[in-house]
């Protein structure tokens, strides 16, 4: 009896869910979204998904693209690369989507990109910053800047705008993004004439950084570069201040989270980080987006949401210009994208299919985030 019950439960679910294949009808364009809706980086996937949903709704309300409605098919990859590969194959070969938006994390994009390339389906990554991603083929695009650019700009910002010459680096060895930023920062900063006087490492998930900080302090740097994610970054800054290290500290877009201030509080004063956009940016594009997003999802959009929104709009714009939904035509139109006004700045796709766009520097003063400047490429 119990055995039969178990078998019945399994078969029931099989029957219920199988055979639900989406197929494009005449007045719609199918777009696949590949996202980490669950798993270790679920917040990234969910924010991007919200941003993209907003872009689709707006476009459809304004009459759609080429007279057709956009239909978004979302596949979750559980934050795993092999799942990303399966999900993207499913979207392309079973659902016959015209283009793919995703993934946020470089590791998943790297698994999905060869598949998109093989089937000549354009893929637009909202936030994969590893340079390797778009090298996978000429159908792979991104709407964010890449690690070398961010590392370079931060090095220049420290050298030119802050006028500092002796830097130290505290990087996360467990994180490819952090390692990349540290490397490019180091290269640019020394090329400019500055010197990196000390370098220390930690691992994502650590909570005590006093040993590394004491070692850095001994080298007497004028500023510390901490490429990593917000949780560790906030703790690092907090513990550095406790050790009487008052120098400026810098970070990349991994710092951009509302959690940063929650954890770090006042100790974050005199820190700077780069990001994709600032909610405080007074430009109408940003303010309109923030207002719409807030009324739709009752939360303040983070950088991932803004990038998801831009990724969607750039793709729809390309389809419009291509006047076709065929892969090669969309690809050519995407490659020709120039000065597209997105929420995250004016975006131009360069010959390596990376986005050339501005970067925003945010500073922390009096325990609050302040928009400092927008740096053009």
């Amino acid at each position, binding site marked *: 009896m*119990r*055995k039969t*019950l*178990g078998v019945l*439960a*399994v078969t029931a*679910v*099989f029957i219920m*869910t*199988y055979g*639900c294949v989406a197929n494009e009808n005449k007045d719609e364009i199918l777009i696949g979204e590949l996202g980490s*809706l*669950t798993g270790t980086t679920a917040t990234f996937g969910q924010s991007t998904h919200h941003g993209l949903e907003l872009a689709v709704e707006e476009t459809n309300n304004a009459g759609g693209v080429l007279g057709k409605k956009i239909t978004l098919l*979302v*596949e*979750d990859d*559980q934050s*795993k*690369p*092999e799942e990303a*590969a*399966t*999900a993207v*194959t*499913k979207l*392309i*070969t*079973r659902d016959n989507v015209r283009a793919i938006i995703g993934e946020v994390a*470089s*590791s998943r994009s*790297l*698994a999905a990109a*060869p*598949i998109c390339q093989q*089937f000549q389906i354009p893929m637009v990554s909202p936030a994969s910053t*590893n340079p*390797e991603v778009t090298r996978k083929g000429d159908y792979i695009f991104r709407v964010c800047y890449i690690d070398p650019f961010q590392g370079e700009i931060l090095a220049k910002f420290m050298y030119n705008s802050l006028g500092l010459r002796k830097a130290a680096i505290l990087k996360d*060895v*467990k*994180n*490819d993004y952090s*390692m*990349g930023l540290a490397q490019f920062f180091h290269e640019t900063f020394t090329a400019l004439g500055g010197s990196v006087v000390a370098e220390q490492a930690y*691992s994502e998930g650590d909570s005590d950084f006093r040993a590394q900080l004491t070692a850095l302090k001994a080298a007497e740097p004028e500023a510390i570069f901490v490429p990593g994610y917000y949780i560790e970054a906030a703790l690092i800054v907090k513990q550095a201040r406790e050790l009487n290290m008052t120098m400026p500290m810098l970070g990349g877009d991994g710092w951009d989270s509302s959690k940063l201030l929650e954890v770090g509080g006042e100790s974050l004063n005199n820190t700077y980080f780069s990001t994709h956009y600032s909610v405080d940016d007074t430009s109408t594009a940003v303010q309109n987006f923030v207002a719409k997003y807030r009324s739709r999802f009752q939360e303040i959009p983070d950088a991932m949401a803004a990038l998801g929104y831009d990724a969607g709009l750039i793709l729809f714009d390309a389809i419009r210009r291509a006047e076709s939904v065929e892969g090669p035509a969309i690809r050519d139109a995407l490659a020709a994208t120039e000065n597209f006004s997105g929420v995250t700045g004016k975006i131009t796709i360069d010959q390596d299919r990376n986005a050339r766009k501005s970067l925003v520097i945010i500073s922390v003063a009096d325990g609050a985030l302040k928009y400092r400047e927008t740096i053009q490429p």
Partner: protein
Amino acid sequence: MKIHKSVIFLASAIVLSFLATLVEHRLNPYYFQIIIYIGINIVLASSLNLINGFAGQFSLGHAGFMAVGAYTSAVLTTGLFSSVNPLLNIPLFALALLCGGIVAAAFGLLVGIPSLRLKGDYLAITTLGFGEIIRVVVQNLDFLGGARGFTGIPKLSNFFWVFLTAAAVIFTISNLINSTYGKAFTAVRDDEIAAESIGISSTRVKVTAFVTGAFFAGVAGALYAHFVTYINPAQFSFLKSFEIVVMVIIGGMGSILGVIFSAVLLTILPEVLRTMAQYRMVIYSLLLIIIMITRPQGLFARRRFGKHKAILKI
């Protein structure tokens, strides 16, 4: 007769997987991919079954061996092999698979000799630790791509290699278990002290099972690397080990057929549940719980491959 049958099994598996390779390009790539994952999971689950089910040692480090195999073979095919004649790709890929397995087996020996003197929980923790050490070491090795991952691995895995390996692992395990030497495995599992008392060296038996399991996990890792074409250390975290352990437990510890069946089931199930979007993993886990409540001994209780009577009723 027994050996005769299993040789027929192996031969027909080779022929079938070769024939399947000829038509694989006609198959929808999505299904193709799922079938490849099924094959890889059969290899992983069956090899872990040898350690957990037959030798009774609870290992949680299978993803670590998989990582060793994946990285070893990836270094070989991208670095050393790329310069030679492309015609040699097929035999060289076979060699890379073998090397992946051998290096993983060597690690298995290295970990096994000291840690298999431990029992139960202690062994589980040591192997879990080993898996994590492998991952962290790879993360810090620049020539393996570190945390950024290893890209540009050629896509060489196909039906032939995957199902050949699956057949080889099933062949090895079923023959081993039915041999006199293999009886010692189950003896150690059922009562280690009693086994020792009749002159079986339990450590030796456990190490043999462990090294054999590690070898096939390494080959599975190599097949995986040459299918996904991109590997990074995060793919081989302890969660991967748990996935394989779940397959073994759901299938029934020590049941060759049951573990094959659950490897197939647990690979297909998440795909079938795709329409559920975010709730997919909730339903998946719920089904696992239902299976465990209704069949706590696993879908198939301890049975031997090809024989339909239970050999042990515990």
